[in-house]
Every structure is written in C-alpha cells, then in structure tokens.
C-alpha cells in the first residue's frame, strides 16, 4: 500500500464515503454456543469476534478480590488478520489495547455484585482494517449484555482521523496509516443519550478546535452504531416471537 496523493476528492473519500459517514456495519449476537455471551462484528473490512465468560470462579486464587469482580480483557489479532503475517501472541500494542479497553469496561460493569469472581472478555481480530479496537469494544459491549451481566449502559466506540486537514469519521486503513491524526473514542450510552467518555486515545496532532469538532463527529457516529447494537440484540427475540406466531 502506498500513500495516495489526495484523500478527499470532490468531498468524497477514497472509498466513496462522505467525511461524516461510517463504514457498513454488521452485528450478529450469540454466535458462540459455549460462551455465556458472544458477538460478531464487521465494521468495514474489520472482522472481530467477542466472547464473554462469567462471572465465574476466579483462578488462580490470588487474583480474586474479596470485594468485587475482576475483569479480564484480551485483545488478540490472528496471524492472518493483516497483510504481513503477524507473529502470534501478545505484543506491546495488543497489551496496551487490552489494558485501555479493560479500564473502559471496568467503569460500566457493576463490579460489587460478584465478589471473588472473574469476568473474562476475549476479542479476536480475524481481519484488521484500521479501528479494530473500536470494533472490538462494540462487539464486547454487545457480548456483555448478551451474557446477562449487570452494566450501567452500553459502550459504543468509533474513531475520528484527520487527513488533508479534514476530520473524517471511522477511518479506513489508508487514512489511518498516512493521516495526520487518529483519535479513537468510546462512549457510555445510557437512556438513549451519550453519558460520558469511557476511552479516548490520540495519535498525531490536532488543535483544540479540531478535538472539539472530532468529539461531535464521533458522538454522531456512535449514536448510529448504538442503534445497530440495540437492533442486533433485539433481533434474536423478535425472530423467536415470529416463529411462534
């Protein structure tokens, strides 16, 4: 892949999207039978699967917390998820993503309800195309709800990038690799509104005004994704209802 000369031509991006348009999203719930909750998400060319186990007994014993549940989050990329084979196993990048994502989820899970136990969240990236951490958070959030774990609300995540001096929502590979800045967000959505920011990272440079503008752009995108997440969860019950009718 080489750097394109121009990222935006006639107001359209390289893949034909408008600057404030998301990539096509597909969400499927309850895809893994053995997991307590699971979800498959496609965000553009990203393909990720999330599995949630628990709350279950924490082993080894020393990780138990007598007052609250322990949350474990594992973000992992498959060796075949990128163009050049990725060495399997955790690396600097995936350990960092796991840590920040875990902290985002710890803020919404009602941890005091399950002392001495553990909730495991595993997300596997099958195919990566920029913004895989946001796709993973979206998938994990749906999987948590599917597992019936008490949470304050849903997490919805989306990134904003800056290319050719313009802010674009949900960047794809080219924009992410050669852009000037990249800023993933995760929001806690409650009562149909964005309640707070649960995760925020940045790569590159943006001015104060640009960050404000990026936040607004991300909020708009997040609400769209939230509606899709809701729809995906509700779908399993509607279908069963129709079968019986």
């Amino acid at each position, binding site marked *: 892949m080489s750097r394109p000369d121009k990222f935006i031509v006639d107001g359209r991006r390289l893949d034909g999207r408008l600057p404030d348009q998301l990539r096509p999203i597909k969400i499927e719930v309850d895809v893994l039978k053995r997991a307590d909750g699971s979800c498959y998400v496609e965000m553009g060319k990203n393909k990720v699967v999330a599995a949630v186990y628990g709350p279950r007994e924490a082993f080894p014993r020393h990780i138990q917390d007598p007052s609250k549940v322990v949350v474990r989050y594992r973000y992992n990329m498959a060796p075949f998820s990128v163009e050049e084979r990725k060495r399997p196993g955790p690396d600097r990048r995936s350990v960092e993503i796991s840590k920040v994502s875990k902290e985002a989820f710890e803020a919404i899970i009602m941890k005091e309800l399950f002392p001495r*136990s553990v909730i495991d969240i595993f997300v596997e990236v099958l195919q990566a195309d920029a913004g895989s951490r946001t796709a993973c958070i979206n998938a994990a959030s749906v999987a948590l709800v599917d597992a*019936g774990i*008490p949470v*304050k609300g849903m997490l919805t995540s989306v990134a904003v990038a800056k290319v050719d001096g313009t802010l674009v929502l949900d960047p794809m590979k080219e924009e992410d690799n050669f852009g000037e800045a990249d800023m993933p967000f995760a929001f806690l959505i*409650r009562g149909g509104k964005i309640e707070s920011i649960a995760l925020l990272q940045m790569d590159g440079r943006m001015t104060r005004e640009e960050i404000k503008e990026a936040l607004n752009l991300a909020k708009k995108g997040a609400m769209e994704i939230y509606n899709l997440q809701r729809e995906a969860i509700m779908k399993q019950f509607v279908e069963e*209802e129709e079968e019986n009718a």
Partner: protein
Amino acid sequence: MRKIVLPGDLLSTNPKLAGYGTYVEGDKVFARIIGIYEQTDNAIRVIPLKGKYNPSVGDTIIGIVREVVSNGWNVDINSPYQAFLPLSENPEAKPGKKLNEILEIGDAIIAKVMSIDPRMRVTITMKDKVCRAIRFGRIVAINPARVPRVIGKKGSMIKLIKTELDVQIVVGQNGLIWLNGDRKKVAIAEEVVYLIEEEAHTEGLTDRVGEFIRRRKNVQTG
C-alpha cells in the same frame, strides 16, 4: 408483545419504584440487565432473560459434590460460587459413618441455601423435607434466568407437567431440574423443559405447553 429492555434504558424518574434488575443514579431509574420490563403499582422490575444463577437464602437448588473435606462437602451449584455443605447439616450423617460413604464426589443432591456471607461464601443445608441425595432419575440443565417460567405463576407450569405426565419434578433455582418417573414420560418432560427454556419470553406459554404434551403423548401411544 412484552417490552424487552437493555442495560442503560431509562425506566422511570421515581427512585422509589426501583426493583430487581434496575439501579438508581441521581433521581433516575435505569435497567442494568437485559430482560422483560414489568411494572406494578409500587415497583418496576426487569425480569432477566440471560445470566448466571446468583444464590439467595432459602432457594432450593440441585448441586453436584465436587470435594469431600474433613467437616463437610464442597458442592458445585452452577453459579460463580461453590457452596459448602457442613457435616452437621446433613441428616444422613451418623457417628462412625465416613463422609465419603454418605456422599461421594459426583453425587447429586437437592439442598437449600442456608446462609451467604458478604464475601459470597455460600452454606447449604439438607435439613428439609424436599432435600435428599439423588440416586436415580434424570437431571436437566437450563439457563437459570428461565427457571421462573418453568415453575410458572404460583407453580402452575409444574402442576401442569406433574398432572399431565405423572412424573416427579424438582426445579432447582440454579437451573438444574430433577425428573423421575416412567422413562418415556420423563423423556417428554425433558423436551417440555427445553421448550419452556427456548420460549420463556413469549406469552400464552402454559397453553402451548399443555397442547405440546398432549400431542407428544398421542405420538407415543398411537
């Protein structure tokens, strides 16, 4: 159709109504689990559709012995926490009788939750007339969140299964169900239990289950 709510959905602005499956922040009541919204005059509840069994005192449960220790048994109760059955809470215990002669690893028991301490250490008892060691019959596992539907309103669903099929049935709150009786009828009862689990969130279930049982019985006899 009954309304299904997701965590974070705003249910009310009156914190006094907050019931099971909800939480209060500020003066607003939100759902905290996925479930069916239910409103009565003095409370709002969310009846869970998914989730693990969380023990509470007085529940009848079915457990499997996992470990025999010097003063009792550690029992798996299909929840995040193992339960402990002390020797003194098993009426079968007699001086001079070894613990593993009373209950061995892998044995199933019907027991009741006696106490839970703040660190979620669960103690169970067998001093109750429904409690006993299970040596025959069949145990069926379902999603614990669906148990209330298997029991039905004031036990209507269980009563239906018992009268229609003439089988013994004990429903553990933890999602394990013990069935005993004629083998063919137990097989139908098992199917019925899975049917209820599958369609727990729909209405008019009792009628449909009744019809299902009659149809299945005709297939076997005719």
